[in-house]
């Protein structure tokens, strides 16, 4: 059974590249670009992994993460956060909000794949 990843990212070309990368790696990829409706989308799909950008139109990635951690169905959902802001303060905020992995742009494809495989290991 293919594992399911949801990518919430408002840069269409990043979305396209990551979609290609993960699809080729055996994932079902669903994408979403709007911060305000992101929580609804995640709770509806309940993916195996969420890749979440920090700066989104509407609700920020940080607020989306806090919201998801307050819901029983998503409180332990693995989340990889992508951000262009690498300051330690943002990293601290993300960790307090319950992020599993934090990655700063521009990242390499190998880093993304390693993180995704690490957060959701293949069933053996």
């Amino acid at each position, binding site marked *: 059974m293919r594992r399911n990843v949801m990518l919430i990212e408002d840069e269409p*070309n*990043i979305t396209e*590249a990551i979609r*290609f990368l993960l699809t080729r790696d055996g994932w079902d990829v669903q994408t979403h670009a709007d911060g305000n409706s992101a929580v609804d989308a995640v709770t509806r799909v309940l993916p195996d992994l969420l890749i979440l950008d920090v*700066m989104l139109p509407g609700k920020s990635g940080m607020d989306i993460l806090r919201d998801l951690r307050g819901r029983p169905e998503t409180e332990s959902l693995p989340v990889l956060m992508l951000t262009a802001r690498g300051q330690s303060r943002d990293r601290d905020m993300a960790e307090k909000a319950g992020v599993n992995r934090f990655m700063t*742009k521009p990242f390499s494809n190998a880093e993304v794949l390693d993180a995704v495989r690490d957060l959701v290991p293949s069933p053996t």
Partner: protein
Amino acid sequence: MSRDTLTGSRIRERRQIVGLKQADLARRVGVSPSYLNLIEHNRRRIGGKLLADIAETLGVDHAMLSEGAEAALVATLREAAVEAGPIAVETDRAEEFAGRFPGWAEVLGAAHRRILALERTVETLSDRLAHDPNLAGSLHEVLSTAAAIRSTASILAEPGEIEPAWRDRFHRNLNEDSQRLADSSKALVEYLDEHDGAEDRRTAPREEVDLFMETAGYRFPTLEQPGGSIDAVVQDARHLTSRAAREIAAAVLEGYVEDAAAMPLDRCAEAIDELGLDPAGMAQRFGVPLHTVLRRLAVLPPDIVGCEIGLVICDPAGTILVRKQVAGFAMPRFGAPCPLWPLFSALSRPHHPIRRRVVQQGRDAVRFDCLSLSYPALNVDFDHDPLWHAIMLILPEQAVPLPREGSQRLGEVGSTCRICSRRSCPARREPSILDEGF
């Protein structure tokens, strides 16, 4: 005002410290009390033998009187001592140092101010990187585009075949993103150029305005004449190097022009001749608010008001908007001032004039009468909280006659906590270096 024009004020301060009456000092140095009075109010220049005789009688080096150990300079030296960290500085001898080696003291003070200004520039730039929404947005755009390019290019560079549809799409994306990166990089550079390029950012804008006002002696005679141009004054001011400083200075000068129009110099001189320094009486005579009178009095020539007058104006956050130094009343250049200044009492009692006699601690402690008032800085309107400003005039003791002499309790105030020696002060925010073994 240049330092030597304050010699009379220093003589007066020193005479009061040693407890000598004006008439007694005059008799000992062989001049009339009225002539000494003119000297003490800086209306007569003094030098040579008479200055040497007065200095000897008052027990100070004549350089202390002619060049002066300015309170502000001493305060700056003490601030420098704080920043020196664990070095044991003889802080209690700062005034002596400034008096004996005025040149070196100025060098040290200027170096300290320069360090503070540079530190503030670094703070400002760091703050901009962290909080400037334009800068953050531009950087986010650049980094996101770079991420898209890196990711897409990596896919294309991988060995093996990619479906032609995907390959074409990625090529198109690369082209779009490279154009976006070029545009966003250019916008970022333009933004940084606009804010940093031509302006000297060595000091904060308000620092530049302080220096500009101080250099002008807080007086702008051309603006008191018909046709005086604020723009011309601002453009000619070499200390106003940043656009922000020029805007602040222009706003300050607009207030100056309004005050001068409401209270012309010649009519002020007449009023003071007739009423003495009576701010309330002058407010009635000119039909202006009391705070306008206080602001105007502070910038009138000393030969009209009869003394040097200091001025502070702050906003409700306690930030000093205008400062006019006066010898003997130290004001911190950076950081928060003493919360016991009557200026801040006025903020909690809007429209209520407050008179306080205060003294700052120190060997050359001089008493001042402070007149404070808070007032709405903008037009008051329904549904909008008024923005209050507070103003404080700092006058020599008894410059404004009290209703009943002796009715004023003497309040001890400081400059700023770090260099204040009042151990039991209830308003203390942080320990003083004077309690740390210096």
